[in-house]
């Protein structure tokens, strides 16, 4: 039986994000570790935001996929540290987001220590429109349909679109 099962990591990597189903959990960068010890699979995931409600759904989907693949003993753990950043979204994930009409985040790099500067005026951000490619786009709302997305509009094709905001 063991020999016929697909590798646990491969199964876990194919599970999709419940809120951004164009991405797998691996694309999103929330799948942190998969270890198999004997019959037991331990999967570690990380939340995008502290209050992300999708984290429980992700755990349930992982358990369901691994159980269907023949793993009876599956545990999913949520780990906070180090904190998730949008920089962990893979290149493949960024391409899939753009293809689905969602602008991917820009790279933010590591945060500096010390006081965090206030940003009173949103810096001009070059977020190209995922539909027509125009760079003339404006933010409508910093907070969108899920914690990780902002709402923007293209000033050329006039279409609104979502943007995975940098974290």
């Amino acid at each position, binding site marked *: 039986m063991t020999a016929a099962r697909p590798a646990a990591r491969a199964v876990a990597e194919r599970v999709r994000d419940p809120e951004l189903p164009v991405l797998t959990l691996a694309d999103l960068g929330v799948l942190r570790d998969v270890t198999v010890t004997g019959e037991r699979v331990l999967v570690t995931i990380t939340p995008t935001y502290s209050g*992300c409600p999708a984290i*429980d759904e992700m755990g349930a989907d992982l358990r369901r996929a691994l159980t269907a693949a023949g793993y009876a003993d599956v545990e999913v753990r949520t780990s906070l540290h180090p904190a998730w950043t949008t920089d962990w979204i893979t290149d493949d994930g960024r391409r899939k987001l753009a293809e689905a009409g969602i602008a991917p985040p820009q790279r933010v790099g590591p945060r500096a220590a010390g006081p965090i500067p*206030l940003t*009173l005026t949103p810096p001009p951000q070059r977020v190209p429109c995922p539909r027509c490619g125009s760079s003339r786009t404006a933010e409508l709302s910093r907070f969108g349909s899920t914690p990780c997305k902002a709402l923007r509009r293209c000033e050329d094709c006039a279409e609104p679109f979502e943007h995975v905001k940098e974290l």
Partner: protein
Amino acid sequence: MNVYDGLTAGDSGDAHWAFGTGFTEPLAGIDRDVPSGVDRADLTAYALMLGDDALVASQLLAAWTSRAPELEEDVALANIALDLLGQARLLLTRAGEVEGRGRDEDALAHLRAEHEFRNVHLAEIDCGPSRMGPSAPGRDFAATTARLLVFSSWKLALFARLRDSADPVLAAVAAKAVKELTYHRDHAARWTVRLGDGTDESHRRMRAGIERVWPFVDELFTAHPVETRLAAAGVAVDPAELRSEVDGVLDEVFAAAGLERPAPVPVATVAGRAGRDGVHTEAMGFLLAEMQHLHRSLPGAVW
């Protein structure tokens, strides 16, 4: 241990996702030992202080859903409330495990009495939305904006330092929360400028909002003995250290908004005791009655 365990036992968690399920190991992968030389009761109390601030602030922000001036703002405030709720869950979970009496996040949130809550008064005061009739200055969206501006500026300065806490759990929660609070503070600051620098009416209401919250500002920078002891141990942040940084941020916002920082108002206490000691304002009883009602009336309810 979790009051919902009975309802979810044997279930893979697929049917429920709102709360009380599947979040059993939120602190996995972090060293959860209490740092040596740190008093467990102090660390429990400190995690409750931070967790209660976030929980109570979240509860009141969520009340704006469907009541904000525009749809985008409903969504924004709900998102901010959700971030704060997530932070509260992690902090209350830490308080419960350090306490060691088997209380989880739900027991701490829903089964404590008012005098056991340790949040600052700023988090609990009524800044609207008005439950009856038209909103009044000081109980409206501008007052909520003023509260969010002060609260998130203070919390961000605090959590930026707490990233270096000797308690690895508090450090990890803070590292995550800092990114979220940065968005919250920017959001409140931009609204403060938009209202303060807007029409005569919006300016008047923004100013009334700031006056509404100002009597509760000094408490934010007054160290409780638990904070003083834990700051000496490298676990906590002495809130008095935050004042100049927070004042600097607020002054920058107020200058852009055409507003002035009001004169300091001494902390109102009862025999020297305030929110961190479990002494609360009139608003707290109403807030808890609403927040705890469902859990107390229907123990173990799930969505």
